[in-house]
């Protein structure tokens, strides 16, 4: 049975050229430490700095504004805690939204234990933040605004540029979690007006274990990991050089191939949504236009998401669910409930996230399996009433 991988929001497969870059680096026996003063470390330095340029170019930053990390979560922790620690004398107020990834939400929850105050602005039914709400929430104690670029569950792209104008005018630092969007849609840190931006390589056909934090020049921020002088004194510890070399290549490819990738993914998404619209009692979550090109979140009434996911897996279709049913007794997705989706419907949610290797044929096969699974599960659901 062929596998149809529709879970690119969890991780993307390595691009063949990324794989080649990484293998070459290993095969050349480049084990050196980039901070060594002899020539054995030279190849590592070159790989790091090449990758830094490539990642910088992807988001229109300067190479020395890129700090490599081990993943998106570390970048986010660094951005938020780093600013909180650096600015604690100026203020202890941080603004965010109620649809952030756990790596933002939980980091902020930890800071709250240390006396920081967090204001959470709501989203509308499409998952969009209103920039006016952010503006109103800013006080003289506000040190940071952290709002995600694109949501990883429903795909909605937030008005970051508008918010960036506000934070600039109010002289408040602005971080955006661009892990879901980075390498998938065009990002220009100047257009967005952000001071900090987090990305991860495994979201754009690079390896897991490599991430980056963009830190605008002159931003006051503490390191998250203290120690040596790596990454311009901003992130201590020897880097994951093989992973970072792969991330650099993936960033270069993402920048060059982006228009074609977006076109391809949008075509798949459109085709899938057209098919979904023939089904009864389903809801497509997120914003109809301001959305990631390759993601569809769909809530199915009367059935539970995990059971749909297992049915699909039986047909070789890999998807993800944010349904709380990983344990059968857990909460519905905070993102969906934030958009006003009721708790029960939220339990029946499946996220399809397409990739550059998927085809229209995959869409058809997955849809057929999806339709069959829903019918089967509804036939035994006590919530389902035949009309």
């Amino acid at each position, binding site marked *: 049975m062929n596998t149809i991988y529709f879970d690119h929001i*969890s991780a993307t497969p390595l691009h063949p050229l990324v794989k080649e870059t990484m293998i070459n680096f290993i095969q050349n026996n480049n084990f050196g430490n980039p901070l060594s003063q002899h020539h054995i470390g030279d190849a590592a330095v070159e790989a790091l700095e090449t990758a830094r340029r490539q990642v910088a170019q992807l988001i229109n930053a300067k190479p020395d504004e890129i700090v490599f990390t081990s993943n998106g979560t570390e970048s986010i922790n660094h951005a938020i805690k780093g600013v909180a620690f650096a600015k604690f004398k100026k203020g202890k107020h941080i603004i965010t939204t109620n649809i952030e990834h*756990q790596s933002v939400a*939980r980091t902020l*929850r930890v800071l709250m234990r240390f006396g920081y105050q967090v204001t959470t602005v709501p989203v509308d039914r499409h998952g969009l933040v209103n920039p006016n709400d952010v503006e109103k929430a800013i006080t003289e104690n506000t040190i940071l605004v952290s709002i995600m670029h694109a949501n990883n569950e429903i795909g909605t792209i937030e008005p970051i540029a508008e918010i960036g104008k506000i934070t600039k005018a109010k002289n408040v630092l602005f971080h955006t979690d661009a892990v879901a969007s980075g390498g998938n849609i065009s990002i220009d840190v100047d257009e967005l007006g952000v001071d900090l931006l987090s990305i991860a390589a495994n979201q754009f056909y690079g390896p897991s274990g490599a991430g980056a934090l963009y830190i605008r020049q002159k931003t006051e921020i503490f390191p998250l990991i203290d120690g040596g002088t790596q990454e311009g004194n901003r992130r201590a510890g020897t880097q994951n050089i093989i992973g970072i070399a792969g991330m650099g290549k993936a960033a270069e490819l993402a920048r060059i191939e982006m228009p074609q990738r977006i076109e391809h993914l949008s075509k798949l998404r459109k085709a899938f949504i057209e098919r979904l619209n023939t089904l009864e009692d389903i809801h497509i979550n997120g914003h109809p236009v301001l959305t990631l090109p390759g993601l569809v979140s769909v809530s199915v*009434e*009367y*059935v*539970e998401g*995990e*059971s749909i996911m*297992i049915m699909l*897996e*039986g047909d070789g279709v890999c998807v*993800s669910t*944010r*349904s*709380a*049913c*990983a*344990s*059968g*007794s*857990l*909460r*519905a997705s905070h993102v969906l409930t934030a958009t006003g989706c*009721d*708790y*029960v*419907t939220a*339990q029946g949610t499946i996220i399809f996230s397409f990739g550059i290797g998927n085809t229209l044929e995959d869409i058809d096969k997955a849809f057929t399996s999806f339709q069959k699974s829903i019918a089967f*599960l509804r*036939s*035994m*659901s*006590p*919530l389902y*009433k035949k009309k």
Partner: protein
Amino acid sequence: MEYSEFVMDHFRNPRNKGVIKNPDGVGEVGNPICGDVMKIMIKVKDEKISDIKFKTFGCGAAIAVSSIVTDMAKGKTLEEAMKITNQKVAETLGELPKNELHCANLGADALHMAIIDYYNRLAGKQKDASKEKVDYIGKRKGKCYCPYCDSVLLSETLFCSKCGKSITGQNK
């Protein structure tokens, strides 16, 4: 995939799914807000469960448990069926992903409620559960339980306040 072949077989080919038109007893447990509802209907003849059907909204484990419990109870006397405990169901199931153990507990509970409902009806406490509306869509009340120790959870908590285990269950 964490489910055993046995569980997967009951999930993919559930036994006894469906409804009984005029059931002698109905048991329903769970809450759609928490992600599962299990409804078991029984027909009783000569103190034995002559027919049994289920309807379940829930994860793979919940559906498999419904199938297994109804299979275990079919043909048994009411007394025997009351002895099907949560623990027995869990043993029959074999290994379940840890977070889903709690689904195993729903099965016997629903079965016992159906039997109690049967006795209640016999005793004249007429309450035809089959006619009650099972329509939770849109409601936001109800409780969630810790999958490890079964105590009631507060809605916004990350940890069970009783056993201290993480209950977010998010795998990414």
